[in-house]
């Protein structure tokens, strides 16, 4: 966040305000008096910083289309944000987001040379269901003699086990307010809530940013507190119990407390830099309730049973983020890097570069690239081996394994007026990891054990401001 209220004296400040008012008002009057005058918006855009939306209301509407390769997750995510800026620097923003998710998600088991059948509780247990029905490639079956309705799905030989039964809808709401505490200090508060069929999250944020050194330097700190409630469709399974059709335990929750401190510095006319340190502590239920692990035969690698995964209840994340904005000739480049470490043993490095190139005075194009690489969490296992003692925690989630990811994308924007822009961005994202880890047991050595994703996405949006 950058503050741009200069520290000025009484006379100069009052004069600035008086003059802006006069010129804006005369602009309006000159219009009745004669043709060819400017509207007040033109006055404001010339008299004020082009960056600030001071006095304007901005609407930003966008839709994200996201599709993973191999028929996995497909998502459509519309968002709408309204930002109201008062003339005195107060900013109120309201954002809503909706999400529709369909498709298949890896269930955590390893592929095998024969077909595998998975039995899980039905998402919506019904006492009246006595017939079998097809649903998302799976079958609802009443377990004989119990009245428990289970959902079964079969995964073909030599393919990554995925569960097709995932459909979810999410909505989210964000509120934010910030105001100038004094000419050099901005305070902000925010709240957000989101809800899915099986997950609810609420959070509160507060921050302060202070500029000094003639606005060349801005120091900012903010804290965030989040509470999440996980409500799995069939209850919360106990880690390392066998996957079954039984209903599971009660809902589980977690809390996240985070702190970000940062400095934004105007290095010179062409270079703006930001350095952030963030630390966050998550406590509570962080396991994926739907995810399982194959327990394999120590010789052949054949799956013998499937156990629910388990993750530690505490996680501390730290990251250092360095971002730069550079004006290079007529172009504007973003160059950023992040180093991350957490108490689960994941270390990662991210580098991101993009360059905004004006094609005409109204149109720009911005190619972008990103590289990401991470080490595995200490409890990451592709599978468990039968006969060996159970680890305390284990997960085969590819997000906790070692992999690298490359993103290529391009963004373009067209501004119809100084206050209205249509933008679009297309992106391709590909994770690569170890497909055939050394020491894979038996036939698993011939299987592709990496379940990372490849995805393409397109986002289209329109942003405009009015007085």
């Amino acid at each position, binding site marked *: 966040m950058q503050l*741009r209220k200069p520290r000025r004296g009484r006379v100069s400040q009052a004069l600035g305000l008086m003059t802006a008012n006069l010129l804006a008002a005369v602009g309006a009057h000159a219009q009745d008096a004669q043709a060819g005058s400017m509207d007040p918006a033109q006055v404001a855009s010339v008299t004020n910083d082009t960056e600030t939306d001071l006095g304007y209301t901005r609407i930003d509407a966008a839709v994200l289309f996201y599709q993973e390769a191999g028929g996995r997750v497909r998502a459509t995510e519309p968002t709408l944000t309204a930002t109201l800026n008062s003339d005195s620097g107060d900013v109120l923003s309201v954002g809503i987001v909706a999400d529709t998710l369909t498709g298949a998600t890896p269930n955590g088991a390893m592929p095998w040379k024969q077909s595998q059948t998975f039995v899980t509780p039905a998402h919506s247990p019904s006492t009246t269901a006595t017939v079998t029905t097809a649903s998302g490639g799976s079958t609802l079956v009443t377990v004989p003699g119990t009245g428990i309705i289970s959902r079964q799905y079969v995964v073909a030989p030599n393919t990554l086990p995925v569960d097709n039964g995932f459909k979810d809808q999410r909505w989210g709401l964000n509120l934010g307010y910030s105001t100038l505490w004094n000419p050099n200090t901005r305070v902000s508060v925010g709240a957000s809530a989101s809800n899915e069929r099986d997950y609810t999250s609420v959070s509160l944020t507060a921050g302060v940013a202070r500029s000094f050194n003639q606005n060349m330097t801005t120091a900012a700190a903010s804290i965030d507190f989040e509470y999440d409630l996980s409500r799995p469709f069939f209850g919360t399974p106990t880690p390392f119990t066998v996957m079954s059709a039984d209903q599971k335990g009660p809902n589980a929750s977690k809390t996240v407390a985070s702190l970000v401190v940062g400095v934004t510095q105007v290095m010179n006319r062409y270079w703006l830099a930001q350095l952030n340190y963030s630390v966050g502590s998550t406590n509570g239920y962080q396991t994926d309730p739907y995810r399982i692990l194959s327990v394999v035969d120590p010789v052949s690698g054949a799956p013998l049973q499937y156990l629910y995964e388990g993750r530690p209840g505490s996680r501390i994340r730290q990251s250092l983020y360095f971002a730069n904005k550079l004006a290079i000739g007529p172009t504007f480049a973003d160059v950023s890097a992040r180093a991350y470490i957490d108490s689960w043993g994941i270390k990662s490095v991210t580098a991101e570069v993009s360059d905004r190139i004006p094609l005409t005075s109204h149109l720009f194009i911005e190619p972008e690239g990103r590289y990401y690489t991470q080490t595995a969490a200490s409890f990451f296992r592709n599978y468990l081996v039968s006969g060996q003692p159970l680890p305390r925690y284990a997960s085969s989630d590819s997000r906790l394994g070692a992999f690298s990811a490359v993103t290529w994308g391009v963004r373009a924007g067209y501004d119809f007026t100084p206050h209205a822009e249509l933008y679009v961005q297309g992106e391709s994202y590909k994770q690569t990891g170890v497909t055939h880890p050394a020491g894979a047991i038996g036939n698993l050595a011939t299987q592709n054990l990496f379940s990372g994703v490849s995805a393409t996405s397109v986002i289209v949006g329109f942003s405009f401001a009015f007085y």
Partner: protein
Amino acid sequence: MNIDAADGSTIDSGRVVLIICLLAALLGACAHPWDRDLLAKRAMQLNTHPAITAAQEHVYFSKEGSSGGRTFDGGGCGCN
């Protein structure tokens, strides 16, 4: 004749202004209010398209083991 700038520095001519600025630019300490033309541009902001940034961060958050840095660790979804 010297011309004194309000910030207390003494300069002799426009040419010198330029040189001082170039030197100070390297030290990161010279941007007059009217030098903010570039910095004031929307394209020069650290987050030009918040909706795109939010979408990207949401995807990365749900597909990678790390999160946060630019702002909060974030989340608010069950995708872990």
